[in-house]
């Protein structure tokens, strides 16, 4: 076996800050190196520097990185142009922005072929067809003239892979290629890359924050923490016998079925939210005229006080539409939802109210959104954001009472009091999500809707936030509607689970029953898509 990429003593500095230090690794033909670490650990920087793609302002890479004997650190633009696309292919995280929306798929796939292989238009087109077939796009000849917006996220990522492997590069770099995808799509992409690698014998560098995913793809794993490689061994050794504390923390943070259970609750608790026959559709403009998208079809569920209802489904299943309907951002065509106090009395209609009474009901339902970066006003301090609902509803008079409440809320979510003065950009993603939770708690709502509240966070931070949510539920008797696409974390949080597909309720049962014996085909598919606890490499030896 020969090393396709060998990196030694690689270091990256930006200005005077050292980002990556003394990183060495090599990837052999047909092998896969997994690079794992939290955001900011320098994973992407390492790989960008090693492949000569580093272009952050004032950044400098030192050390050595040889691809097929060609030195890439400090190489000229001309050398790099000859290498990129031809000897190394890239797949990036966000499939919605890494394709050019103005070009057809054919133009984008044939671009590297025409640049590096001097192919004619005809031959490049034939090759593009082969590639589309190889990455599993149905009806490739019809697809060549499509534009990126006509494809789903998973299909776009397949196209990215097709472009990356177009020139048969010896090395494929995949930077968080499945992070933005649903679990079932993630499993498909993992399989696809493995198959392609098997057929073509190329080396792969796979970057991820999720050790569960890394376990499915990698032969060797390098664990990065603040720019240092803290552990670099075979995947089985890492999983079975992690030496480093940080590696073990990442292992523990993986969401796994049955690892942890939701807090104990009283089974006779009164129902707080009762949703009956909810039906939502939107008008959309299509090339053939106006039509409607039926986002939610006759969905019913109820949530009991102190319990968590998990709503699971892939993107487009209508999960978020349900949340938006309950919080008044979207109007429902049919159905109703009744909200009760924690003692089960004082029912109030949520969906079909408007005007002043709507504001009074809505403040009893709070919501935490997915993206911690855009759900806080960048121009307001953390204190302003958390206190806003209290101010507009005139719940507390006087600056002192408000400051006290602010400190109390910050304390509840595990943030120091000085954070009230800070602005959102001075916080990490996990800290911002804690602020969003504090804001949701401010009005002491009857129900908190968590819409993919941890989906944008690193696994280790996700674990912290989930633990915080459970702790708050136990201490304050909170009621959650927990929306997620990842069944493993739903398993960890929920007492009841509702599985949605294309706006329809597929399965709605108690969590314990559902996970023990899933009835619907779709639920079983979702369950099987969760990365197993053991790495794939273990399957061969365990058998």
């Amino acid at each position, binding site marked *: 076996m020969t090393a396709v990429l060998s990196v030694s003593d690689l270091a990256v500095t930006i200005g005077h800050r050292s980002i990556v230090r003394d990183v060495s690794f090599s990837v052999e033909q047909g092998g896969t190196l997994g690079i794992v670490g939290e955001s900011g650990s320098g994973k992407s920087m390492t790989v960008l520097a090693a492949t000569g793609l580093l272009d952050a302002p004032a950044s400098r890479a030192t050390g050595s990185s040889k691809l097929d004997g060609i030195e890439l650190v400090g190489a000229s633009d001309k050398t790099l142009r000859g290498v990129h696309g031809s000897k190394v292919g890239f797949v990036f995280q966000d499939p919605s922005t890494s394709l050019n929306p103005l070009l057809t798929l054919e133009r984008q796939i044939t671009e590297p072929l025409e640049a590096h292989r001097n192919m004619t238009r005809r031959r490049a087109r034939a090759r593009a067809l082969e590639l589309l077939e190889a990455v599993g796009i149905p009806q490739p000849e019809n697809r060549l003239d499509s534009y990126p917006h006509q494809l789903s996220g998973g299909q776009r990522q397949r196209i990215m892979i097709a472009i990356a492997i177009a020139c048969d590069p010896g090395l494929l770099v995949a930077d968080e290629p499945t992070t933005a995808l649903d679990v079932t799509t993630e499993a498909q992409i993992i399989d696809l890359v493995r198959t392609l690698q098997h057929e073509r014998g190329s080396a792969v560098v796979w970057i991820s924050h999720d050790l569960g995913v890394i376990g499915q793809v990698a032969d060797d794993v390098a664990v990065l923490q603040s720019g240092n490689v803290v552990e670099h061994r075979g995947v089985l050794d890492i999983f079975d016998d992690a030496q480093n504390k940080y590696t073990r923390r990442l292992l523990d943070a993986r969401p796994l079925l049955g690892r942890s259970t939701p807090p104990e609750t009283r089974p006779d608790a009164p129902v707080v939210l009762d949703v009956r026959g909810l039906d939502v559709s939107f008008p959309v403009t299509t090339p053939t005229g106006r039509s409607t998208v039926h986002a939610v079809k006759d969905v019913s569920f109820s949530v009991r006080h102190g319990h968590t209802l998990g709503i699971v489904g892939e993107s487009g299943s209508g999960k978020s539409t349900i949340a938006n309907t309950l919080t008044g951002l979207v109007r429902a065509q049919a159905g109703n939802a009744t909200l009760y106090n924690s003692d089960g009395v004082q029912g109030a209609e949520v969906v079909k109210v408007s005007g002043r009474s709507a504001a009074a009901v809505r403040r009893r339902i709070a919501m935490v959104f997915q993206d911690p970066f855009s759900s806080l006003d960048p121009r307001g301090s953390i204190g302003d954001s958390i206190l*806003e*609902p209290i101010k507009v509803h005139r719940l507390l008079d006087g600056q002192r009472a408000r400051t006290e409440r602010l400190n109390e809320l910050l304390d509840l979510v*595990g943030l120091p009091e000085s954070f009230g003065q800070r602005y959102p*950009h001075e916080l990490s993603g*996990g800290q911002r999500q804690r602020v969003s939770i504090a804001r949701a708690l401010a009005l002491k709502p009857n129900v908190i809707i968590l819409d993919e509240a941890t989906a944008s966070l690193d696994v280790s931070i996700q674990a912290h936030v989930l633990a915080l949510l459970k702790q708050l539920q136990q201490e304050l008797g909170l009621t959650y509607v927990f929306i997620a696409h990842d069944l493993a974390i739903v398993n960890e949080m929920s007492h009841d689970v509702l599985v949605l597909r294309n706006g329809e309720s597929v399965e709605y049962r108690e969590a314990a029953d559902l996970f023990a014996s899933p009835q619907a085909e779709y639920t079983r598919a979702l369950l099987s898509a969760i990365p197993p606890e053991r790495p794939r490499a273990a399957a061969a030896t365990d058998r």
Partner: protein
Amino acid sequence: MTTTLDVEHIDSTRIASWRLLLSNPVTVVSTVVLTLVLIVAVFAETIAPYGINSIDVPGALQAPSSAHWFGTDDLGRDVFSRVLVATTVSLKVAVVSVAIAFVAGVTAGVIAGFMRGWFDTIIMRVVDVMFSFPVILLALAIIAILGPGVGTTMVAIGIVYTPIFARVARASALSISVEPFVQVSRTMGVPAPYILRKHVLPNITAPVIVQTSLSLAFAILSEASLSFLGLGVQPPDPSWGRMLFDAQAFLGQAWWLSVFPGAAIFVTVLAFNLVGDGLRDVLDPKQRSIMEARAKK
């Protein structure tokens, strides 16, 4: 599992805005220049060494000298005195007309962008109609209705510049109003005026400030065009724009006639722009943290 965080040590004590403004030398210099311009505008009549209409035909078109710093014009009037006195009216026209455009345009634009629907459609179609006329033609029409004079010039320029502010404000407000943090506020029952004031307005300041600085410059020039057509400042009263236009005929023989009023416009507009940039940085929390970190060093 613990839920405590290892909090990096960010110093969260805040520095007062005016201190930060003064920590930027460019802002300080431009503020001083702007203050000087304002002082000149107020006391122009007393500072001016000659009367603005002291005609001295034998001494016409003299190059700058110790007696006439900026030279004399075709009627022998002192250009320096005229530039000083013109400051008053030029600045007044620029500031007042842009203020009118700012208030009317930003209000209409923000509400249109936030509410969308029929209000947005009506406002934007009105704006489209206004945009379809050349600026000067529209101003002419307005002055034709209201009658000539400095006051009506200000109103006319204000109205003509309103659609630009409406467009800029609406586009920014539209993108801000679909941000999750605005949706969060909506779900918590926060009333629309509060969201507009606390979330939408602060987040559109950057483009609006840039537009304001640009418009100040153009307003001075628009006033000049209108004065040239005999509708704004009435001769023999001077304004910078008026003087520039009058100087056109002498471009080849008396450069000082156009250079000095032009320089006055240039310095004033530049000062407005730089003060605007300084303000924008202080108002943006991200820039602010960088400045605070520098100030603390």
